């Protein structure tokens, strides 16, 4: 996993609540056995009227948001299925940071595992960012995120501190392999197993 330290990028607004992982990556694309190449299928049913024909009404098809790397969305983003194909698709599409009032638990963990930073801010703040990113007046609206200081800010005076578990923060900063870290505690796993009752 690539280390995440700070990032500045173009913001795209997706003003919907409860965006589920079936929307982020529809089921027909889960049959592949690779981790890569899911970006072209991200939000497939919203993004295309039919395969190859972009839906002009879908926000990410607006040229203004081409190259966006920060997605601002409504509450409970990533609900539903545990498919890690959803963060794989978002990452491959180009998103490194997701900002929403709340995220579904499994999706949030899956994002961390792939070096995507999820930032929960209160709804008023998210609505503000949604407004800025949507407003023609602020075309090209960017946010800058510094993980070390846990600050997200723009050039117009918005600056907000966000919460993150210390362990997750350090893992992101180092781009650490979680399995490798766990295996350094292997003696504890061995000792746990030696006192466990066999189930079968």
């Amino acid at each position, binding site marked *: 996993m690539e280390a995440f330290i700070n990032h500045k990028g173009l913001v795209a607004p997706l003003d919907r609540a409860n965006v589920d992982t079936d929307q982020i990556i529809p089921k027909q694309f*889960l049959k592949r056995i690779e981790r890569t190449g899911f970006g072209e299928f991200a939000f497939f049913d919203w993004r295309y009227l039919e395969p190859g024909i972009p839906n002009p009404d879908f926000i990410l098809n607006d040229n203004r948001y081409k190259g966006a790397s920060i997605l601002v969305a409504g509450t409970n983003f990533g609900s539903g299925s545990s498919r890690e194909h959803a963060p794989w698709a978002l990452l491959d599409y180009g998103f490194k940071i997701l900002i929403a009032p709340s995220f579904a638990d499994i999706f949030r963990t899956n994002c961390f595992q792939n070096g995507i930073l999820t930032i929960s801010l209160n709804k008023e703040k998210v609505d503000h960012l949604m407004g800025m990113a949507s407003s023609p007046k602020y075309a090209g609206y960017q946010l800058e995120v510094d993980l070390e200081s846990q600050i997200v800010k723009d050039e117009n005076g918005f600056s907000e501190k966000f919460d993150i578990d210390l362990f997750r923060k350090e893992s992101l900063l180092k781009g650490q392999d979680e399995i490798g870290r*766990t295996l350094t*505690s292997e003696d*504890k796993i061995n000792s746990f197993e030696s006192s466990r*009752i066999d*189930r*079968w």
Partner: protein
Amino acid sequence: MSKTLFEKIWEPHVVDQIDDDLALIYIDLHLVHEVTSPQAFEGLRINSRNVRKPNLTAATIDHNVPTSDRFNIKDPIAKKQIETLRLNCKEFGVPLYDIDNINQGIVHVIGPELGLTQPGMTIVCGDSHTSTHGAFGALAFGIGTSEVEHVLATQTLVQKKPKTMAINVSGDLPLGVSPKDLVLSIIKEIGVDGGTGHAIEFRGDVFKKMSMEGRMTVCNMTIEGGGRAGMIAPDEKTFEFVQGKKFSPKGDNLDKLMDTWKNLYTDEDAKFDANIDIDCSNLEPHISWGTNPGQVVGINSSVPDPESYSTPEEKSNAQSALDYMGLEAGQKISEISLDRVFIGSCTNGRIEDLRAAANIIKGKQVNKNVRAMVVPGSGLVKMMAEKEGLDKIFTESGFEWREAGCSMCLGMNPDILVPKERCASTSNRNFEGRQGKEGRTHLVGPEMAAAAAIEGHFVDVRDWK
């Protein structure tokens, strides 16, 4: 100190307390299927790692498998994914319940059937409906593929300790109202993210009176309310269910485990982080009208008016759901006509569900405008149903009787809706496109789905003959 059921399972599974919130916990059972595992096995290969405990791991093929002509998989990408699971299981020594095995089926149906699912366990699977196994008083939750790899390699998982939530249900379920109706009404009450960050315990006499199948239906849908896990304290019904199966503990092990199982309940003065009280005495059969499982109403209600919601966000959510579903505000639920009926899935594909549906439709004919399908949750469920003659009841009524698999619950196999088709489904998600692009899903219990197949529209099973 007094403890909740959740704490009584969590604490003895902590291998290493990483910080105040996070712990490395031991996993007793890891269930694996073809869709969320290939990249995990590939990760092991790249890093020259092994599966630490193949005997605590069990795999099956369920999402992609066709429910007719199942040995002839026409989709080359699905076929490759299934073949990849076979090769991975062989290479890493993981037991696989393949298509030709009577124990093949939906992963959350076969775990309990095999006796793999037991009280007090930690159970994970790369599938959000792993919460099903909480019906046995286990801590069971869905994980992503990176975590699947972590469990394969270490038999442990780094987890943030969830908060606890009690959903206290008072009253008895009225006649003709099913556990599915209860859980749909609970999700409506707490909202689709009401349980986020929480391990939920379902409490109350109604759950004690409920069969194990009914408890599985309730726990299965915990994730639709955002819950990290759902659980019900084990009792004599649970202890009886888990014995006499292929992997049931025996002899001394059973005695030792039974002692611990009998302590798996929330102590009287233990505190939960959140409490929800619900009375089910006047509950009606429930049906989803929208595009998330919290958008549900009783059978005698009408499609809600988006303007009746308080916030602009709720109004716009409701309006876009109506647009997608092709419904009008104020339309009577009983006047919604159907093209398809699907009975099956890890929510309602067990023997008791099929019995309940068969009981409703016996001697009647499926409406001429409806195509109806029954898909048993596993090979064993199918065998049991055929022994009881349920298959004949279904086929004589005009239902299709299929082979075990996830089928139309998520349309990763040939069973899908065509655009704008409307389906009464006993599955768990009515998300846009879930059963097929532009397909319109209404979630219901098995009795309601069965009666709707006969009438061609929704009816109240309580006064329907």
